[in-house]
């Protein structure tokens, strides 16, 4: 007890040391904790399915699959017990007249709830989708539509025309599954009606859905992979023609980490999880290293205490245990703090990694035992080195006053260098990511994007002229354009073969207002204008090998006149280069998917409100969102912004860690030289001279760290930038700035300690021993 009391007083007396040790350790542990929970969650995705070892998704790198494939495979292979096809779509759901809600849903085969184990709150898994007109609502949608009323048996309408009966309520899909949250589940047979497309389930060419197979117990479906691939190459046109070449049966547990993103699925990169695991270990290593170093640095003070205790009868074992105990206590304080911190930053973390950690749910007895076990272990380990060092002081040393000199050279200079390498590299990386993100959002895309808003076009083909006319009446609206495909979505793909070379074109269909609205320059060809005429972009001509535009071009059966060439503009994320594009003209009776409005620069809020009111009236109260084009384009780069932020946080953390590291180091180092400083001062050295003397060594280490960090981060960022068609330059000044920042912080930290030593009255230092 007494030694504990003494320890607490020691902590209180050395507030700075305590604060830095405990808070520094706690911050690192917070990251470790959050990341561990995150990694654990990611690895447990889809663990809850009863049939998890028997479910596979059929995957190809090049395509999704069509409805008949599932039926054919089930009929051919005895290994297959059942299949589930899924298709994700959005629609409007109407529980009562004049109440319309947006919803996203998943259309599935009726065995969905039996194959997978998504829990139903109401309804029987084998019956809820038995007939075509049944719908299962998620708990949250049921609450939105019906409040506390029992939804089962209620009628709802989808897309204002199809009637359904609610047959069950399911728990919202949990976080740890590869399927995205859905508001409802319906029988996939309905898609035929929703799309008004007879072949939705029967056309072999409609390759837009995911297919899951349930394997019979003790069967081995994957063993049949090559056989299936062979038959596809024989009978399935996509494979016959060489569009698709690969085929896998991916086990359910691996779908989440698969490169293939199917309809309605989430995914994560295994690399990210591995990288984060490495980071966890790294942080833990650095944090423990710091803790050990700080404690050893402090031990120069405590050596005396230990030696006296030994002199007065304390055994080595007792003192050793005392230090271990202290370390565990300090560790527990840090752990408690880190739990608190973790709870505080959980929301930030969730939004950064697009996840929900549910830390509270992790508070199970088992986890707590594991957690405390691990941290008592860490406390023990991190106390071990200082304990061994300090308890090896001999009592004679206290009598002679020599122990202070004995703790020499223990501090790893390598460790400090390593910490600064990490810090400088991270800093450089995060700046390059920020620079690239800025570059992407600021890049001239080849079209104007300011003051243009867009909304989905929902009014139907017949009303196109009327909608345009109504919206043009609003004073703030300058132009209206209705299109099918736009620079925002890249349009639809047209693949064909020209002169034995496969060509992949994007196509958009626009009205005449489109060009002036987006300020896209057209160079007319010699061909006379006609309604059937098409425009190519420059890249399309190059791709086909034309010097200048031919009079017409035959993509499929029909020869189409080329009436103009447009300048290349970006119509996809800047990860990709500009590809070949064909722009077709759209007449007033053709299908349109999006509506663009050019609005005046002033009073935009009022204009938008008017647009909303008018448009809502025109589409009978259907819900919709209206967005600015430039906002939507910025949205493309949220991932980069997020990566930048994540790295930013790690940079901050590594700064904290290396700050603590060098603080411990300088404390220790300067204590060693306290007497020397005193003597130098007595002999006339100035404070500046002493500061320079003490800082010299640290500059050396940071410089070494710099030379290691530059090539590493240069290489890593080069690799990262290769993922973009448009790249910013990796400027040398970024590295210089990163190095200087690290150096400045290191110097400030060192001077903090050395200044105290330098201004101290030398008499005190000299009397000390």
């Amino acid at each position, binding site marked *: 007890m*007494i030694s504990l*009391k*003494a*320890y607490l*007083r*020691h902590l209180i*007396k050395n507030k700075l040391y305590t604060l830095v040790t405990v808070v520094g350790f706690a911050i690192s542990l917070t990251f470790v904790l959050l990341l561990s929970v995150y990694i654990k969650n990611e690895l447990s995705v889809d663990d809850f399915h009863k049939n998890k070892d028997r479910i596979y998704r059929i995957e190809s790198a090049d395509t999704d699959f069509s409805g008949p494939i599932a039926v054919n495979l089930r009929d051919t292979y005895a290994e297959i017990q059942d299949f589930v096809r899924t298709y994700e779509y959005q629609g409007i759901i109407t529980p009562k007249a004049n109440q319309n809600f947006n919803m996203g849903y998943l259309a599935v085969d009726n065995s969905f709830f039996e194959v997978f184990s998504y829990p139903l709150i109401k309804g029987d898994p084998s019956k809820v989708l038995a007939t075509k007109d049944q719908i299962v609502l998620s708990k949250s949608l049921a609450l939105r539509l019906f409040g506390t009323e029992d939804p089962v048996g209620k009628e709802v309408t989808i897309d204002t025309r199809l009637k359904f009966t609610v047959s069950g309520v399911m728990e919202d899909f949990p976080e740890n599954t590869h399927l995205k949250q859905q508001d409802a589940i319906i029988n996939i047979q309905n898609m035929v009606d929703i799309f008004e497309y007879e072949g939705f389930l029967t056309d072999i060419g409609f390759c837009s859905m995911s297919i899951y197979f349930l394997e019979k117990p003790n069967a081995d479906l994957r063993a049949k992979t090559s056989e299936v691939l062979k038959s596809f190459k024989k009978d399935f046109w996509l494979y016959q023609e060489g569009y698709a070449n690969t085929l896998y049966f991916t086990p359910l547990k691996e779908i989440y980490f698969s490169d293939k993103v199917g309809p309605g699925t989430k995914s994560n990169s295994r690399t990210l999880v591995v990288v984060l695991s490495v980071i966890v270990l790294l942080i833990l290593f650095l944090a423990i290293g710091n803790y050990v170093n700080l404690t050893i640095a402090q031990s120069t003070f405590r050596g*005396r*205490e230990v030696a*006296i*205790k*030994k*002199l*007065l*009868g*304390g*055994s080595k074992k*007792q003192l050793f245990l005392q230090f271990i105990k202290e370390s565990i206590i300090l560790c527990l304080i840090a752990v408690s703090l880190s739990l608190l911190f973790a709870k505080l930053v959980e929301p930030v973390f969730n939004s950064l990694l697009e996840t929900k950690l549910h830390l509270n749910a992790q508070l199970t007895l088992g986890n707590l035992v594991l957690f405390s076990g691990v941290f008592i272990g860490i406390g023990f380990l991190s106390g071990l080195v200082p304990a061994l060092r300090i308890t090896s002081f*001999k*009592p*004679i040393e*206290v*009598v*002679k*006053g020599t122990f202070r000199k004995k703790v020499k050279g223990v501090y790893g200079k390598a460790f400090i260098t390593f910490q600064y390498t990490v810090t400088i590299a991270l800093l450089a990386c995060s700046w390059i990511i920020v620079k690239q993100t800025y570059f992407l959002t600021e890049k001239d895309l080849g079209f104007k994007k300011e003051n243009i808003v867009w909304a989905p076009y929902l009014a139907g083909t017949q009303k196109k002229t009327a909608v345009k006319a109504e919206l043009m009446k609003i004073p703030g609206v300058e132009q209206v354009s209705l299109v099918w495909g736009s620079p925002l979505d890249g349009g639809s793909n047209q693949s064909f073969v020209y002169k034995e070379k496969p060509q992949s074109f994007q196509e958009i269909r626009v009205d005449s207002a489109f060009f002036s609205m987006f300020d896209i320059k057209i160079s007319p060809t010699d061909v006379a204008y006609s309604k059937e005429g098409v425009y190519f972009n420059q890249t399309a001509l190059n791709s086909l090998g034309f010097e200048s535009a031919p009079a017409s071009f035959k993509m499929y059966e029909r020869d189409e006149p080329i009436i103009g060439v447009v300048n290349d503009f970006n119509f996809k994320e800047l990860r990709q280069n500009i590809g070949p594009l064909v722009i077709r003209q759209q007449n007033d009776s053709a299908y349109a998917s999006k509506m663009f409005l050019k609005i005046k620069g002033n009073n935009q809020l009022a204009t938008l409100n008017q647009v909303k009111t008018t448009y809502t009236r025109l589409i009978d109260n259907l819900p919709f969102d209206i967005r600015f084009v430039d906002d939507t384009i910025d949205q493309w780069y949220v991932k980069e912004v997020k990566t930048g932020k994540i790295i930013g946080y790690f940079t901050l953390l590594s700064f904290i860690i290396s700050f603590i590291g060098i603080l411990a180091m300088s404390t220790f180092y300067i204590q060693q030289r306290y007497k020397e400083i005193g003597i130098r001062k007595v002999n006339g050295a100035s404070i500046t001279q002493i500061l320079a003397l003490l800082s010299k060594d640290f500059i050396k280490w940071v410089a070494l760290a710099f030379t290691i960090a530059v090539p590493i981060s240069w290489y890593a960022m080069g690799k990262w930038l290769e993922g973009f068609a448009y790249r910013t330059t990796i400027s040398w000044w970024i590295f210089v700035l990163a190095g200087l920042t690290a150096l400045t912080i290191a110097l400030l930290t060192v001077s903090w300690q050395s200044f105290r030593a330098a201004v101290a009255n030398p008499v005190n230092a000299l009397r000390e021993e």
Partner: protein
Amino acid sequence: MLLELNNIFKWVQQGGQRVFLLKDINLKVAEGEFISVMGPSGSGKSTLLNVIGMLDGFNEGEYHFMDESVHTLREKHRAELYKQYIGFVFQAYHLIDELTVYENLEMPLLYKKIKGSERKAMVADMLDRFNIVGKKDLFPTQLSGGQQQLVGVARALISKPKLILADEPTGNLNSKQGQDIMELFKQLNNEGVTIIQVTHSEKNAEYGSRIIQLLDGRKV
């Protein structure tokens, strides 16, 4: 005989040469003696005291302490021996700053595994005897040098050692404070405690019953 040194030599290697710190020391100390060690600075007084206290080893010779042959003992055993029988008093007090006067006194008893009630009585007894009851809750830094040394002596005494080794116990004190400590030693000696002290002051040396002079590591 409490302890006996026979032909003790101690040296260190310096630049390939032996530098002798103690040369052929012969010394018999009977229980109840009060010995003062004197000699010029660097003559080996502290070294001798540390050898007697078993904090430091020697290279040649024999050392018997209460019928044990110290020169044949392992370090661990030696440590047990001094912990049990010897109390140390230093020039620089060496109290633990984080503990109160009371706790500093209690500490050696904790290591001897003495029961709580008994411990309390022993500490109270010491506080009483040294007239520092009023200071028991203060920390060492809140005491004067003389008071600190008083606590140091009390701490050395509390586990009832047979021998007290004091290296310039009054070195940091003014003459009045030094005199008080000497009076205290005298009184302890009268009660049967053996004392060996190192001192530079003739006056303090007079308190002892015998004076040993050292010169260049040799007894004169």
